[in-house]
């Protein structure tokens, strides 16, 4: 299947006098995991926020499922979900209560069963009646992931999904995401600083620098192009302006 779920065309965003994103174009197909890489302030979070209509672009066009999100917000957002370590859930509510509220917001049928099944899959069923604020960061990440999966999204946007997690939990999260894509054919957009994670999880990668896409391709193709053994070395080359010249290229 090659249906394009996300179409970003020459999108830019300026905050005051600074460009957060400049002239960014990319697509994301069904059953594909796309990684957004870049240093802090490179424009990853702003790009995700524009896809979710939390931030309006200064220029350019974004279409999700072939629809303009500003005009078809409900149709688009009911098929989408998102998770970020920078966005929280109400701390005084239990896991079950939080997921019930979000399940209702997304109109999930048979919600109680859905919540239980999701939590069993993410190994947090024993935390269902625990307050979210009492959870460890690893547990919170799993609950946030449960919230992000509550509506079986066809498009899942994840901002640093394994930030501040120990290697064990981070590995489980990666496995769940890969499994979710395999089971559902969903499209995933993942921003991350974790290069091994990106190498393992993503089919394709876009590297952002100062709001611009400076490299794009499969992880293997980027390694070949930069003559490096790891994506981390590629990332450092790009971040520090090393060779090859940082121009946007679409690699096979």
């Amino acid at each position, binding site marked *: 299947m090659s249906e394009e779920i996300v179409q970003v065309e020459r999108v830019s965003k300026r*905050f005051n006098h600074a460009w*957060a994103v400049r002239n960014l174009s990319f697509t994301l197909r069904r059953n594909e995991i796309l990684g957004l890489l870049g240093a802090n302030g490179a424009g990853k*979070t*702003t790009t995700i*926020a524009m896809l*979710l*209509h*939390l*931030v*309006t672009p200064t220029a350019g066009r974004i279409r999700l499922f072939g629809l303009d999100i500003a005009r078809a*917000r*409900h149709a688009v*957002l*009911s*098929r*989408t*979900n*998102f998770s*970020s370590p*920078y*966005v*929280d*859930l*109400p*701390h*005084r*509510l*239990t896991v079950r*209560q939080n997921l*019930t*509220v*979000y399940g*209702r*917001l*997304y*109109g*999930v*049928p048979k919600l109680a069963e859905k919540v239980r099944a999701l939590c069993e899959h993410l190994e947090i069923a024993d935390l269902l009646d625990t*307050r979210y604020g009492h959870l460890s960061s690893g547990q919170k990440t799993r609950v946030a992931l449960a*919230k992000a999966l509550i*509506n*079986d999204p066809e498009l899942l946007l994840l901002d640093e999904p394994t930030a501040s997690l120990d290697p064990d939990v981070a590995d489980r999260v990666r496995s769940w995401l890969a499994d979710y894509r395999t089971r559902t054919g969903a499209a995933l957009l993942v921003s991350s600083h974790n290069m091994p994670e990106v190498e393992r999880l993503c089919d394709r990668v876009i590297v952002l620098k100062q709001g611009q896409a400076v490299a794009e391709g499969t992880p293997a193709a980027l390694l070949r192009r930069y003559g490096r053994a790891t994506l981390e070395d590629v990332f450092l080359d790009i971040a520090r302006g090393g060779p090859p010249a940082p121009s946007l290229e679409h690699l096979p």
Partner: protein
Amino acid sequence: MRRAGSASRVIALVLRHYYLYRSSWTRVVELVYWPAMELLLWGFLTLYLRDLGPGLPNVVALFLGALILWDILFRAQIGVSLAFLEEVWSRNLANLFVSPLTPLEFMVGQVIVGLIRTVVTAGFMTALALVLYHYNLFGMGIPLVAFFCNLLVMGWAIGLVVSALILRFGQGAESLAWAVIFLFQPVAAIFYPVSVLPPWLRPIALATPAAHVFEGMRVVMLEGRFDVGLFWNAVGLNALYVAGGMAVFLWMFRVARRRGLLVQVGE
């Protein structure tokens, strides 16, 4: 996936606040603590004034009625603003607005939460006034419904504007939630008629829906009749206020999207 209806999303927001209050006794106590303190302080003062000056007609009824009605206005506003602040404090706004929830549904949810809070507080104050001072607010009769509704709507409108300002200027502006309503207190003619105000302040008072409500309350208590003109003045002004409050909130929501504030607010 079944599309959630607007009503289902609004109910989800109300449910979120129900869960919050169920788990937080401090929030429940806050609903009645300050109103009780106010009622104790000013209630006993009115008893003293009644004994001091027998020439003052209906002083207890006038004062306590005004106090409870003022608190309805205040609680309606703070209820809406606090419903918004709870989302800011929990850094939950972005999660809400990446769901199909619309800003209009969000406003309706805030207003319903504000209404429930107000009913709880007003009920408590009414009962307390009856027990302590043998003052029955329902003695006003049917006009009380008109006063209650008008004060609710004015409180909602101000609450929406306050929420919009917090959205625009961030959590640092949260003290506005408790402060803005007191801008209206001197001109709302709560304890005195508009005619007491200096002439230059009267037009401002007459542009305040609450002033017409409190004037109407005094007509009911002192003359035993319901002034329909005052009622419609309040209704007309409230229509403008609530339309303005919604417009300001939606405008600030657009500004927040343009400036990226929905992602940052609460941080």
